[in-house]
C-alpha cells in the first residue's frame, strides 16, 4: 500500500529533526560549558525533540480525505517553465557581479519575458534595458547606492 502524502512528509520532517538534533550535539561548547543551565546547544536540542515529536504525531494521526490537488494534476503543472525561471535566477546570481548590474538584469528580464511568452519586440525592449537604466539611475543617482558595474565603467558611464 502506498503511503499517504502527509505521512511521507511526516517521515521527511522526522528525518530532518533527527539530523538537526545530531548536528546540534556537534555545536562547540566552551570548557566546562556542559554544566551550565543554558548553552548554545540547549535551544536547538529542544527544537529537535519538538520537531521529532510533532512529526511522529503527524505520522500516526488519522489522515483526512485529501482536498489538495491530486498527483496527476500536480504533474500537469508548468514545471518546465518554472525550472527554466529557476535556472535563469541562478544564472542571474552568477553573472551580476561579472557583467554588472545593468547588463545582467536587463538580460534576466528579457529572458524572463521571452520564457513566459512575450514576443512583441518593442515591449521586450521597453521593459528591460530602459527600465533597468531608470532603476539604476534612481539607485545610484538619487539614493546614492553604489553598484559596481564593469560594463558601464568600460563605457565611461559610471566610475
Amino acid at each position, binding site marked *: 500500500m502506498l503511503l499517504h*502524502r*502527509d505521512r511521507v*512528509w511526516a517521515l521527511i*520532517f522526522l528525518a*530532518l*529533526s533527527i539530523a*538537526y538534533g545530531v*548536528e*546540534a550535539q556537534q*555545536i*562547540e*561548547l*566552551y570548557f566546562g*560549558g556542559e554544566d551550565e*543551565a*543554558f*548553552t*548554545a546547544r*540547549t*535551544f*536547538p536540542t529542544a*527544537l529537535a525533540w519538538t*520537531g521529532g515529536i*510533532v*512529526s511522529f*504525531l*503527524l505520522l500516526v*494521526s488519522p489522515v*483526512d480525505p485529501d482536498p*489538495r*490537488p491530486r498527483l496527476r494534476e*500536480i504533474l500537469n*503543472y*508548468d*514545471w518546465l*517553465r*518554472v525550472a527554466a*525561471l*529557476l535556472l535563469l*535566477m*541562478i544564472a*542571474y*546570481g*552568477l553573472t*551580476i*557581479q561579472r557583467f554588472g548590474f545593468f547588463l545582467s*538584469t536587463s538580460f*534576466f*528580464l528579457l529572458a*524572463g*519575458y521571452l*520564457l*513566459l*511568452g*512575450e514576443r512583441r519586440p518593442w*515591449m521586450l525592449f521597453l*521593459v528591460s534595458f530602459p527600465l533597468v537604466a531608470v532603476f539604476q539611475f534612481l*539607485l545610484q543617482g538619487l*539614493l546614492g*547606492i553604489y553598484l559596481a558595474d564593469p560594463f558601464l565603467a568600460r563605457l565611461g558611464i559610471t566610475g
Partner: protein
Amino acid sequence: MIEGLWIGLTTALQPLNLLMVAIGCFAGTFIGMLPGLGPISAIALMIPVTYGLDPAAGLILMAGVYYGAIFGGSTSSILINAPGVAGTVATAFDGYPMARKGFAGKALAVAAYASFSGGTIAAVFLLLAAPALASVALSFQSPDYFALMVLGLTAVSAFAGRGQFLKALLMTVLGLMLATVGQDVSSDVSRFTFGSIDLLDGISFLLLAMATFALSEALMLVLKRERPSAEAERALRGGMGSLRLDRREVREIAPVIGRSSLLGFLIGVLPGAGATIASFLAYGMERHIAPAGRKEEFGRGSLRGLAAPETANNAACSGSFVPLLTLGIPGSGTTAVMLGALISFGIQPGPRLFVERPDVFWSVILSMYIGNVILLVLNLPLIPYIARLLALPRRILIPLILFFSLTGVYLISFNTFDIQLMVLFAVVAVVLRLAGFPMAPMILAFVLGRLMEENLRRSLLLWDGSLAFLWERPITLGITLLTLLVLATPLIQFLRERRNRPVTAGKG
C-alpha cells in the same frame, strides 16, 4: 497620552510621511489586487525601499501597504472572483455576484466604505487599547515573554485551519530551526553553518520572507498557469456602474459595520487569528442574525454579506498591531514581517517602544487612520483605472516581481550567495505549499526565534536550569495554561468529530 498623540500627529502629518502613506496605499492596492500575491509579499517587496527612510516613515509606508493590499484584494475578489489575499475570500461571496449583476461600482463602494469605517473604529480601539496594554506589559519579565511567544506560535498553528494544526506546528519548528543558523548571540559559537562564511551572520529575514512569499507566490502563478487577466478584461469591458449608495442602503449596512468592527478588532488582537478568520466569522454572524427574508440573499449579492467581511478584515488589521506594538510579539505573518523590518531598523517593538519612541508608536497608529482616509478619498474614485492593472499580462508582471525580489535582497548584502539561497528557499516553499504546509507560521517563528531563545536563556539562568519559571509567576502560569488550552483545542475538536462520525454515517 495627549502628548504622545500630538507627537504622533505631527510626525504622521509631515509631508514625507503623508506621501509614504499614499504611496503605500497605492502600491499595496496594486500588489494586493494581483491574485496570488498577498500583503506579506507586498510588505516584503517594500522593505528594501524603507531602508533609506527613518523608522517612522518606513513603518508608515508598510502600514499603508498593508491596508492597500487588503483593499486591493477586495477589488480582485469583487471584479474577477480571485481574492488576492485570504482575508478577502469572504468578500467574493457577495461582491462577485453583485459585480455579475452589473453593480461592480456599488460593490466596490460598499467595500471601501466598510473598510474605511472598520479601520476607523478599530483605530480608535487601538488608540485606547495599545497604551493600556503597553503599561501592563512593562511589568513583564523574560519568562512571561517566552511563554507569550510560545502562546503566539501555538495559536498561529491552531488557527491554521482544519486538519492543518500539526503541519503548521511543523512549519513553526522549521522556522525556529532556521533562526538558529549562524553565530549564537550569547556565546559567539557558530551553529549549523557547515563551514560557510556566508551563513555566519545567519539567514537574512528579508531573504526568507522574499523567497517564501514573493518569489514562491510568483512561481506558483506560473506553475498553475493562472491567467486571471482574461477575466479582468471581461469585467472591465462590462463597466463599473454607479459608485453611489442610497439612504436605505446606508441604513442597512451601518449596524453591520458597527458589529463587524468590534468583532474584527477583537479577533485581530488574538495571536494567530487575523483578517481571514475575522472576515469569515463576521460573515457567518451576519448571516445568522439576518431576518428570515434576507438570509437567502447571502451568496447572491447581499450588501450585508459584503459589508461584514470587509469591515472585519480591516478592523482585524488594526487589531493585529496591538500585540506587535505593545508586546513586540506579532500575531500574524504580516505583522511578523513588519517586526523583522523594525528589528533591522534597530527598533525593538514592545512596551518600551511606547515610552522610548513615542513618535514611532503614535505615528503608526495615526497613519493607519490617514491610510484609511486615503484609501477612501483617493483609491475609490481611481479604482476603475487602478483595476485596469489587473489586465496587465502575467508574462510582464512575473519577471518584474522576480527582479524586485532578487535585487531587493541583493542590494542589502551585495552577496550573490543570497540570490542562490533565495532560489533554494523558493523551491522548498513551492513544494511545501503544494503539500499543503502553511508559510505564515514559519516566517513568524523565524522572526521570533532569536528573541525566544534569548528569553528562554535568561529564564533558565534565573531559575537555575529549572522549567519552574513556567508556573511560578502568576502571569506566566496564566499564559502557559492558555497555551495548553490552545494546544488541546484541535485535539478536543478531533475527538468530538470522531464521536459524531458514526451518527452522521448512519444518517447517510
